[in-house]
């Protein structure tokens, strides 16, 4: 194990995979000469050269489609979106081409591509740069959606995503890029896509949180522990496929669930989780499932509004006490 930043773990995953397989290449805005807008790809141009680390113009639709065509024709592209907010310019490529070509061709063609970059809010960037996209992409069969919460998972899941024969939407976080953690240095360190992690054991309430929301969930659990309440925290790690079985197993033990999700609430991943839990474990629930999400508005700029907009540990703490009928 080595201590690494989240961005270093992502880079390690890409470098190791590119050293292993020369059909893998990285392309995106500022990934090469600039060494990465957020320095995720720092040093990769020097190591792999301009054939495999490729700067693009600001043409998301064009280079996303180019990556899909390259994947169809035998390569394994990693396409970086400077932020997932910009992926909306390319959404036709992701939804109509990446997700559907395997199906429409009757399985004749595969699209082994990873689209990755920072997702969700990163401070006071206002509405256009603050969108959590997981539910948008997860709604389309054919795509896989991965959202790691820590450097070790980031490395293991990104390596799996690169080796996956399907298009993977890989959601990172600009805020988390500098966060550190222990990371496996094993060359074949793969975390399977579709397997949740039980991050904290407890029997009082199940808290589910992915990506940055995982850290809110852990803080919430610490606050509850001070009251003598032991929460179980589940980090789904992958949004699609969703490891609903691990979540259900926890709920059958705790009988209560709070979901933290920094997406807008309407038709979100927390909506989907809530439905699946009530469908499959209704009889085990002692209280309605509660969720703590971003507010149902575009993201604001003002500091106080932005803080209010984002899901907080305090809100999650209150929700947990409510589903336990403590308050």
């Amino acid at each position, binding site marked *: 194990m080595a201590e690494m930043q989240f961005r270093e773990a992502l880079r390690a995953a890409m470098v190791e995979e590119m050293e292993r397989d020369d059909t893998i290449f990285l392309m995106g805005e500022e990934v090469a000469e600039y060494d990465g807008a957020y320095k995720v790809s720092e040093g990769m141009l020097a190591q792999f050269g301009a054939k495999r680390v490729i700067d693009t113009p600001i043409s998301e639709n064009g280079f996303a489609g180019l990556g899909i065509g390259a994947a*169809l024709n*035998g390569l394994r592209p990693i396409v970086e979106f400077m932020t997932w907010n910009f992926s909306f310019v390319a959404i036709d490529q992701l939804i109509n081409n990446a997700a559907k070509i395997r199906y429409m061709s009757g399985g004749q063609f*595969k699209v082994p591509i990873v689209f990755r970059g920072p997702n969700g809010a990163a401070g006071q960037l206002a509405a256009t740069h603050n969108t959590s996209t997981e539910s948008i992409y997860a709604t389309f069969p054919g795509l896989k959606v991965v959202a790691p919460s820590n450097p070790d998972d980031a490395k293991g899941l990104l390596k799996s995503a690169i080796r996956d024969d399907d298009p993977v939407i890989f959601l990172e976080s600009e805020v988390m890029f500098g966060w550190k953690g222990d990371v496996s240095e094993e060359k074949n360190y793969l975390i399977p896509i579709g397997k949740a992690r039980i991050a904290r054991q407890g029997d009082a309430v199940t808290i589910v949180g992915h990506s940055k929301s995982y850290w809110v969930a852990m803080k919430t659990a610490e606050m509850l522990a001070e009251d003598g309440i032991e929460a179980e925290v589940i980090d789904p790690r992958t949004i699609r496929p969703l490891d609903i079985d691990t979540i259900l197993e926890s709920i059958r033990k705790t009988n209560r669930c709070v979901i933290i999700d920094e997406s807008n609430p309407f038709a979100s991943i927390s909506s989907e989780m809530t439905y699946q839990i009530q469908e499959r474990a209704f009889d085990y629930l002692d209280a309605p499932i509660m969720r703590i999400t971003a507010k149902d508005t575009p993201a604001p700029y003002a500091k106080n509004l932005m803080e209010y907009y984002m899901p907080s540990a305090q809100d999650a703490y209150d929700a947990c006490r409510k589903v336990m009928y403590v308050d």
Partner: protein
Amino acid sequence: MTRKTARASTPPANGEQDPANVIRTEVEYKSFQSDEVSHTDLGLADDQLLDMYRNMLLQRRFEERAAQMYGKQKISGFLHLYIGQEAVSTGVANAMKIGEDSVITAYRDHGIALAMGMTSNECMAELFGKVDGCSKGKGGSMHFFSAEKRLFGGHGIVGGHIPVGVGIAFAHKYKEDGGVCICFFGDGAINQGSFHEAANLASLYKLPVVLVVENNEYAMGTAVHRASAETDLFKQATGYNMPGALADGMDVFDCYRAFSDHIAMARDNQPSLLEVRTYRYRGHSMSDPGKYRTKEEMENKKNADPIIRLKAYLVGHNLATNESLDVIDEDVKREVKASVEFAEKSPQPPLESIYEDVYAQKDYPFLK
């Protein structure tokens, strides 16, 4: 190899020699039409020419029969017919290396599929939504695919596949396998941003791609002059610093020569834009009666029919007789009729196949 080419000449370095200091557009044109050149001039053998005739006729008869089957509700969904445009597909199929080069096209894809050697059976079965269809009944008319022939699809979103075609070319260059990608789209697609982004990337990265705009004069019901500010679509090439040229899409000789030239350029990693002026006789799709054009216009175009033109050449050069060509027609009709019987008999896809081919892994957990 010079065709009608738009090239913006840069102003001379010495402004005094050209006080106006304007950018000029030079246009040269050289055509290779069947009333000007012979097939041997183009390197086409007699047999190959007869095969081309048969294939154009196959495309025509296949689609006439498909239209009939649509009327009988054997075929559903959208059905965009290629009738009138057969010289384009046949021209490229003879100019490329099938199985090594790649093709991607839009939703009017039956003609190119048949030209590339996909069978009438697999194509008709796909239209019928049957399991023996070229996309196992999951693609339909707009989504013909063949990994074996390297047809990377018919695609249903106007312009959405153009960047994908450029990416296929990117992989050819990356792998150094010598292949090129020929990327077809319609005159409507050239106004999509995806064309602009893809053309820029193709030229920027020097990719082995031929961007082919099949200008059949109408984007759905909107005539090209009502949709494009510049109706000489090939001139768009100058904006991307690549050669642009024009070919007569009603003449298979001119198409063949143009594709040969542009594919050769692509093999040298020189992308280009080729505008092929063609015409579709039918409406945009089966639901379109085509009231936006006059009978006179249609009659004029039909007089330039690519199949009749090739027939006249074959007979005029003693390569065939009217009778021998009628025999080919009968043979083609039999093939198409048999494909309908094949499609009728082919089973519907089993219901459990709805969950197949979504993901690579077999045990992917779907909501059921």
